[in-house]
């Protein structure tokens, strides 16, 4: 781990702190509606399908599929300027296929990224207080 993490860190709020807390335990969890069992992400107060406010946090396997990807050559955010080109991906979850989640794939050359590539979640402790979700090929 570098001495100082130079990228942006999350600022969890009352709706997202469960999600970030789970990552600290190396668990990937998503909100699931207790009434109609629909998964949702990012965390929000109501179910997009049945509007219920009741939900539970369900741990998923961490197996994902690459839905789409980009490689950034000219970043808007200055912290990433030294890292070009870097990838950003959208991943769908095997256990919750209606969810698309943003991340990075590590441990693979950008030219090897392909849509539908199988991925698995990686928990990256970037500071003593912060664990970030990333992905690697499986």
């Amino acid at each position: 781990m570098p001495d100082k993490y130079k990228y942006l860190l999350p600022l969890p709020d009352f709706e997202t702190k469960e999600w970030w807390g789970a990552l600290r335990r190396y668990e990937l969890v998503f909100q699931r509606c207790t009434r109609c069992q629909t998964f949702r992400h990012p965390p929000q107060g109501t179910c997009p399908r049945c509007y219920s406010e009741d939900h539970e946090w369900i741990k998923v396997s961490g197996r994902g599929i690459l839905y789409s990807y980009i490689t950034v050559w000219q970043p808007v955010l200055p912290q990433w300027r030294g890292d070009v080109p870097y990838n950003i991906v959208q991943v769908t979850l095997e256990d919750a296929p209606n969810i698309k989640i943003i991340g990075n794939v590590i441990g693979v050359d950008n030219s090897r990224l392909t849509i539908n590539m199988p991925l698995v979640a990686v928990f990256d402790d970037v500071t003593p207080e912060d664990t970030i979700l990333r992905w690697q090929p499986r």
Partner: protein
Amino acid sequence: MPERDFRGKTAIAGIGYGRSPQAPGAFTTNSGVSVLTLAVRATKEACEDAGIDPKELDGVVSFQLNDSVPPSSVLTALGCPKINYSSDLNGGGEYASFAIVQAAQAVYHGISNYCLVYRAMNGRSGVRMGQLGEGTGAGTGRVGGAGQFTSIYGLAGPPSFFAFQAQRYMALYKVTSLDFANFCINRRTNATNNPRAAMRQPLTIEEHQSSRMIVHPYHLLDCCLETDVACAMVITTTERVRHLKKKTVTISAGMGASSFADEIIDTGLIHIGPRILKAAGIKLKDIDIFEPYDNFTDCPMRLIEDMGWCKRGQAKDFIKDGRTSLDGELPILTQGGLTNEGYCHGLNNALEAVQQLRGEAEDLCPDWRNGSHTYDRNICRQVRNPEIALHCGVTGGSAIIFRRE
């Protein structure tokens, strides 16, 4: 109330661009004036075009992303004595058609007699759209809200948001960057005779391919411009427009704004397309020109497909053989679009549709202002006698059909 009752009851009284001696074509990289001044310039020109006193304006609609002025301030700056309708839409390109639809609704329902629609922005020298989603957490190094799931991975700016759609589209339907280059060349050809356009040199495949990568798969020349500009349109009843200066271009139908599909390739035109044709009482083949929102190259290609001119993934072939050129069966982006003319958040593509339907495309023909065109494609970009135009907002979030009487 059934949608068909709305058909043809409202019309475009006038259109205007925020021009100055320094920026005769309206689009510039550094206007040197306030957004309010740009808005007033465009509104004045639209009222001159209509032949009405700006003080007759009594309604206003605009859209913005905290980069413009409150709509009522424009009418106040023009000394308009009464404001009967004012709407400040918080959003971007999804409102490019809808802002006009809303003004037409205000007129249709008798709330406003002359309703202004404008978009004004110092989009290059002031607040830049390209920086959207920066979310830097106010110097804390932390970011909340949506950014805690996006900017922490270095995701910010429209090219990166849209490149996900492009990448998936290209991979699933075997569309290549060379296909993008072909689309860009067609569109640039229309810009060459547009005095307003920032990009007017004919384009080659090599130039497109060698332009620097912004966010793969987007090269620089796949991205629309950032410009300082204002565009304005005045809407009133069709009855009144018949007594004004210009040819009557009516609003047949319009709807939106915005929805998001599970499949990120899909655009709003999948839903809006059939409904707007029905509301306008026309068939797809009746549309003479198409002015889609072209923020990035794949976007108008997918809009062509979702409107039904061809199947998903086939726009790359549809645009060949001049089919979408000025003399083709479906001229598209007749002034070069947001990528070549400049970026007024999509409203400029709607003004272009009105110019074309009036037969007053601003080009290099000596007497274009009087609707006299040569159709010599070295100087002229007027389509031959178009009657019906379709304009739409970003990824088909809203759409409008204009029709010349």
